[in-house]
């Protein structure tokens, strides 16, 4: 089975994120990393391939050249090859524009299964899977916490506000996995060494036959108008445990008559 996993290069969790006041976009110049929510998607794809004993796991991403670092991390986990759409014309793409680019790559790849992570670690959106599924005209199951594939069908168990649903869909299909679906593996040394030699293709918008007017800011249908300070909140206290944290918490509770 051919499995495509959509992944994103996001600012590293240790970097203090900021929005550039000029472009009103997230400043992506600092250290980046593979979106943590995407590691579960990669892991799940690898497990399916390992269970089947054959198949291919293809990574698909859109982002700056630096995103290759994140793709190499996923290749080191065990994915077979990577495709990065890197083009100035896609910068600033919102959901409609991004889903258009990814769908174009996925159409070309024709995978049996497309896997997304739960959400973007930078945008907090959990929307790209369903948007891409609509463009590909394929069924989507989102928030999947347990996935079974047999007889050309996939069965996903997922949590909603009301309990658990079990949903079935025929392949080809799109799933977005929950971050509870698995514990992603760490790349082995051998995996890291081998990742550099795996096929890594960089595509431009022209390679995909897409028109610039449908992409980037021009192709987006949302805009950022202004940045404001958040409403004022009370002073937060943050301490490092030096062995006395439990006492400090107990004192804090006593001061507020919560003990």
């Amino acid at each position: 089975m051919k499995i495509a996993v959509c992944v994103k290069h996001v600012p590293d969790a240790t970097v203090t994120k900021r929005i550039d006041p000029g472009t009103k976009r997230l400043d992506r110049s600092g250290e980046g990393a593979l979106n943590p929510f995407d590691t579960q998607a990669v892991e799940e794809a690898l497990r399916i391939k390992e269970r089947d004993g054959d198949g291919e796991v293809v990574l698909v991403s859109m982002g700056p050249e630096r995103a290759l670092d994140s793709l190499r991390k996923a290749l080191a986990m065990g994915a077979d090859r990577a495709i990065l759409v890197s083009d100035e014309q896609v910068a600033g793409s919102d959901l409609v524009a991004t889903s258009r680019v990814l769908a174009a790559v996925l159409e070309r790849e024709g995978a049996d299964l497309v896997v997304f992570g739960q959400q973007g670690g930078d945008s907090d959106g959990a929307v790209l899977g369903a948007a891409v599924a609509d463009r590909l005209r394929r069924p989507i199951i989102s928030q999947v916490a347990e996935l079974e594939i047999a007889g050309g069908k996939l069965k996903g168990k997922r949590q909603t506000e009301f309990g658990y649903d079990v949903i079935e869909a025929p392949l080809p299909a799109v799933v977005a996995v929950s971050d509870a679906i698995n514990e992603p593996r760490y790349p082995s040394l051998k995996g890291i060494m081998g990742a550099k030699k795996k096929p890594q293709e960089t595509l431009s918008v022209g390679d995909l036959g897409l028109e610039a007017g449908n992409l980037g800011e021009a192709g987006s249908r949302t805009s950022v108008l202004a940045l404001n300070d958040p409403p004022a909140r009370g002073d937060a206290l943050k301490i490092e445990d030096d062995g006395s944290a439990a006492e400090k918490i107990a004192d804090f509770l006593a001061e507020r008559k919560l003990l």
Partner: protein
Amino acid sequence: MIAVFLEHHEGELQKGALGVLAKAAQLGDEVAGVVLGSGVKDLAARAGRFGAAKVFVADDPALEAPLPQPRVDALAQLVHEQDVDTILFAVSVLSADVAAGLAARLDAGLNWDLVDLASDNGNLVGKRPALEDTVYVDVGWTGETRLAMFRPGTFDPVETGGEAEVIDLSPQFVDFSTQATMLEQAHAESEGPSIEDADVIVAGGRGLGSPENFSLVEALAKALGGAVAATRAVVDAGWYPYATQVGQTGKTVSPKLYIACGISGAIQHKVGMQGSGVVIAINKDPNAPIFEYADLGVVGDLNEIVPKLTQLVEQRK
């Protein structure tokens, strides 16, 4: 006209969606509700009482299960056939997939995670907290159709007692939309004391490291006379029962004291507990978002701190 997607469950319109309806009605112009399902005509009539001037109803067996794609078909048709240019959603597992699919289908802008909406000479402006709520971003739409999703619990429903004009839709479904089928809907029974009424909640997340370590959380909760809660990640991993889950999926709680142990504090968790009085967070990761909204944040090893705290609470109470 603005239309609000009115999600329903077991014959009840959902509170979050009715809250969004109330907000939309405040913006001035007439607002429509949209009810999609099977055997839902009665529900449609009820939406009038919460501020809808019109209610569009699609009553079709293909809309029986709460699956997103047939709903995308119905809403796309609504935009094409009726005078509707804006659709608002209270975020949920279902509505996020519906809104996202619809954005792609209609090439329409979708802004999510909004906490407010204002009308500026007919131009809608949404307010979206970003970067762990350290920045409030004003967002807009540039296309003809506007889609927006709001954080849960953002607005309260307002009962106006009005009556809505009910308009039937006859949706046509595209081939791929009805391919997914619902095999089971297992709805969690509530078990044990409800966390919604507790004055004190001690909650555990993935940072506990193992299901066994919930005993640390349980002991502290017992010493404080409180209840135990859990995050979605650990509930989904089978560490703790669904009935104790706090967050966007799960319960919304507002205890006087909320102690978060090993919880990173993603926005999905925050929305379930932001009404708490005092929040204390214990986490070994100094960058955990939970510290942004904890009154007291402790960076350290909960395996050391929590048992010591339990002992101190027992001594001092």
